C-alpha cells in the first residue's frame, strides 16, 4: 500500500484513493482530428517501464483529483520531468 501525497491532506494511504489512470495527452478537438488520431488518443495509454504521470482521486478524503509521477518498476513516487522548469 503506497503512501500518496495529497496536496490538501498530506501523505495518505493508497486505500483512500481511487486510481484514475495514466495522464493522457490533452484531449484533441474531436472535430479536427482524423479517425486514427482519435482512436489512438482513446486507446493508447502511456505504459512505460519507468516513471509515469498518473491520476488518483482522493475519494475517501478530500475529493481532489491529483496527479503524481510514479515509477512503475518500484512504485516510488518520483519527480516528474516537467517539474524541472
Amino acid at each position, binding site marked *: *500500500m503506497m*503512501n500518496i501525497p495529497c496536496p490538501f491532506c498530506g501523505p495518505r494511504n493508497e486505500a483512500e484513493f481511487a486510481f484514475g489512470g495514466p495522464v493522457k495527452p490533452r484531449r484533441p478537438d474531436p*472535430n479536427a482530428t482524423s479517425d486514427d488520431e*482519435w482512436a489512438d488518443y482513446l486507446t493508447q495509454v502511456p505504459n512505460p517501464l519507468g516513471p509515469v504521470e498518473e491520476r488518483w*482521486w482522493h475519494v475517501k478524503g478530500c475529493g481532489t483529483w491529483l496527479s503524481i509521477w510514479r515509477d512503475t518498476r518500484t512504485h516510488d513516487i518520483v519527480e516528474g520531468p516537467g517539474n524541472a522548469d
Partner: protein
Amino acid sequence: MQTDRLDNGGRIDRTKTLNFTFNGRPYQGFEGDTLASALLANGVRLTARSFKYHRPRGIVGSGVEEPSTLVELLGDDASGNRPVTTVALREGLAAKSVNCWPSPELDVGAINQMFARFLPAGFYYKTFKWPNWHLYEPFIRKAAGLAAAPAEPPKEGHFENRYAHCDLLIAGAGPAGLMAALVAGRAGQRVMLVDEGSEPGGSLLSRNLMIDGKPAMEWVRSVSAELAGLSNVRHLQNATVWGYREHNFVMVNEREPEQPSILERNWRVRAGQVLCATGAIERTLVFGNNDRPGVMLASAVQTYVNRYAVRPGKRAVIFTNNNSAYAVAADMQASGIEIAAIVDSRENPPEVARASVPGVEVLSGQVITTTHGRRRVRAVTVAPAKGGTGRKITCDLVTVSGGWNPAVHLWSQSRGTLAYDQALSTFRPDKAAQSAASAGAADGHLVLAEALRSGAEAGANGGALPDIPASDDLDYAVDPLWQVEQASGKAFLDMQNDVSVDDVHLALREGYDNVEHVKRYTTGGMGIDQGKVGNINIIGTVAMQKGLPLDEVGTTTFRAPYTPVSFGAIGGIREGSVALPYRHTPVTAWNLANGAFMYESGARWRRPGYFPRAGEAFQDTVNRECRTVRNDVGVYDGSPLGTFELKGRDVGRFLDHLYTNVMSNLKVGRARYGLMLSDDGLVMDDGVALRLSQDRWIISTSTGHADAINGHMEEILQTEFPDWNVFITTVTSQWNNATICGPKAREVMQALGTDIDISTEALPFMAFAEGHVADIPARVVRVSFTGELSFEVNVAPRDLLRLWQRILEVGVPFGIAPIGSEANHVLRVEKGFLSLGHEVDGPIDPFDLGLGWAMSKKKADYLGKRSVALRRAGTSNRRELVGVIPEPDRMIPEGGPLTPGGEKKPTEGFVTACVYSTVHDRWVGLALLENGHSRHGETVHVRLNDGVIPARVTPPIHYDAGGERLRS
C-alpha cells in the same frame, strides 16, 4: 520422566510443571519450555516421518528454521503444520506428528522407503499418465498435505488489525536490535522494536557470553528495562515482521497479545526506516543419512542445553566447517555431554577455536560420510575429506554446523539486493531499495562485538555513537562445505520436502539447470520452512556441479511471509457487514418489519424485492403489485437513486459536455432525461436533470453507478475544466423520496394534502415544484419509471418514514400497496424503459437502444459523440433493442440466446429481460437483436439446450406507446 533434563540452569520455571500429550502419550515439561525442548527432555527423539519417503525424523533446530518436525495441535488449539520448536508448552497441550499414521514409530507409509529408488525428483512428470492423472490424484492428494485442515474457526477470541507509525522499525531484539533501539530511543525517535521470540535477547538467550563483564542476559534485562521506560519506544515480543511492502509498509503479526480475547493482532506499520536485525540462521551439513533422528544443528543443541536445560544426547560427535561449533562444544561439555570428537572439514582449524575445548579430539580435514542407526543415530562414519578409509564412532547425537546465513528474507522482500560474501561464504545485504538497513548477524556481523557496534551505528543513523559495551566471543571463520562428496546414503538438502543431492544432480542432468528450475523440479525449498536451513546448500550443490561461483547461480526469490501467518490475523475483524457495510434508507427497518423480501441490489443497497402476503407464491405477489400500479396506485422508496446537486454559473455547459443531449437550455422548474457516454462511446449511465434555478441543478444517476459517476464528473471538472464555476455535492442521502405511482396517484397526493398545484397543467410530466406534502417540506417531481402517473416526493431523510407511513394510511381507500424491485422491473419492461444492467451490453450505443434522439446534433462536441460516430462507421449488423413476444406464451430465461432458426449457431442477440405482463396476461420481453429495428414482425428463435422458443419481434414498447398515462 524428564530423563534428559539437566539438574540446573535454563530459562524455565521448574516450579510450574505442565502436562501435555504427544501422539497420545502423556509427558511433563516446565513453564518456559517449547514442545520441542519438553519432548527432548523426556527422551523423545523420533518425532516425525518425512514427507515423501517416510523416513524417521527427529528435531533438528530450535526455532522457526525447523525443517523436520511439524506437529498438529489438537483440541481447542487445533491448528496444523506448526514447527515443534515454535510451540510454547502449556498445560493440557495435545499435539501429534503430521504425515505419519498411526505414529512415527509404526508409520505405514514407511513402505515408500523401499521404492525410494524409483521415486526420484520429478518422477510424477514421467508417470501416472495412463489412463489419466485424475485416477491417481485422490491417492496422491491424500498422501500429501501434511496436517489436517482446521475444521472450525476459533471458538473464543478474535483477531484484529491495527495501524502504527514510527520513525524506526527494528525487526529483531537480539544484540544488534536492542542496541539500535537503545540508541534511537534515547535520541527521541519513535521506535518500534519487534521480536518473534517469547523474550528479547535473540542469540544471547542461547549462548553463554559476557557483556560488560556480566552475563549477557543481564545486559538484555537492563536494556529492556530502559526501553520500557521510554514513551517513544514500543516493544513487541511474540511478534513477527512477516511482510515488507512498498513505501516502507511493514506487516507485523503479534501472537496472543491479549489472551483470551485477542488471539492475534496484525500491525500495519508505516515506518520511516526499517532496520533488519533479524539475525542469522545456521545451515546444516550435507552427508549420508544426515536426516536421522539425533542429527541436530549446533545452535539448536546449544539452545536446548543453555536455555532449556535439556541434554539432547549423552555422547556427541560434532561436525563443522567453522568456528562457532567450538563454542557450542564447550557449552555441551559443561553440561556433561561427552564429546566423542569434533570432525572439522577444514585442514587447519584455527587455534583460537581449538582452545575453547582443550582436550577434545579434533579430526581436522575429515568429514562424516554417513550415520548409522535405525530410528535414532547410533554411530557415524568419519573419513578424510580428500578421500580414504573411514572409521566408525559411536554416538547418540550429531551436532552439525555448516556456517551461518544472514536472515536476509525481510531485506529481500524490501527489494534490497544481495551480494555473495567470499569470507562468510554466504549472501548478505548489499544495496537498499527502500529506506532500509541491516545490522548484526543479519548484515554478516557474526561476532557479538561487531553486532553490537553495527546495531549502535544503525540506531544512531549518523548521530553520536555511545560506548559499545565490551563482550567476549569467538572469532568467526568458515570454509564452505556444500556437500560431502563421498557421502553414502541419501544426503538431504531439504529435509521437509525430502530433496537429496541425487535429486539436484538429476535435475541438472535433465537440463533443469537454472536454480529456479532446480527448485521447482525437486521442490527443494518449497516447504513450510521455505528452505531456511537448506537453500544455500542447494545453491552450493548446483554451483559445484556446474563449476560456477555461487553468485552466478544466484538465489531464488524470498517472498512474504517470513513465517506462515494465519488468515484470521490478516483479515482482522473485517467480516460480513464490517467488510461490506450496508446502505440503508429510513424505510429499511419498516420494510423488514413488514415482511419485505430484501436483497442486495447493487452498490450495497439492500432493497425490498417484493412484499409477499399470506398464501401468495412469488409470481402472485409480483402480479398483484403490478396490477396495483397499473389499476390503482403503488408507492416505492426511490431513495437509493444517485443524487447530486450542482451549483455554479458553468453547470449548464458542464452538463452539455457530460450528457449526449442539450441540458443548458432546460427551463427552471423542468426536468429532462439524459444519457451519459464515456469518451470512447460506451453507455455509462442515464438519469434525470432538474434545474432548480439559473445556477443550481439536481441530477440523478442509476443506483449502481452513482459512485462511478461522481468520480467521472469530478475528474472532468478538476482536470479538464478547472476554471469552470461548478461545485458538485453528493446528496443521495440528503434527499430521500417516496414515489407514488398509478392512475390514482393524484388522488393520494390530494389526500395527503399539499400546497403545490399538482394539476396536469400546473405540474406536467417532467416538471417539478417545491412546497409541502402532508405538512412536510418537499420537492415533488413528475418523472415516471413505471409508465404511470407518478409523483416523486423528495423530502429530508428525517421526514421520509413519516411521509411513507402517511402515504400508506391515506392511500388505503385507493388500494395502495408498497411495490418492490421485482414489480418495478416488470413495469419498466412493459414500457421498454432502459435498465443499464440488462440492456446495455458491450459496445451498444444510444442509436441501438432507440435513443438516437438523445444524441444531440446541435452540439459540436460532447463525451462520446465522435466515438459513437466512428464506431458506427466501422461496424455493421449492430444489435438493436426490440421487444419480443414468445409464441407460444411462455417464459424465456433472461440471457436466452437468439440464433438463426434456433440452431446451434453463433448468436444474433439475446433476450435481456422477460416478464409476465399483467396488462397483456402473457409473457413479454426485450432483446438485443442484430439489425433488430428493421426486423419488427419477424419470428426469431431462442435456443436453449432443452428446446427452441420462437418469438415475434416487436417495437420495444409493450404498453401505452403514446405515453398518455404517464403524462396524465
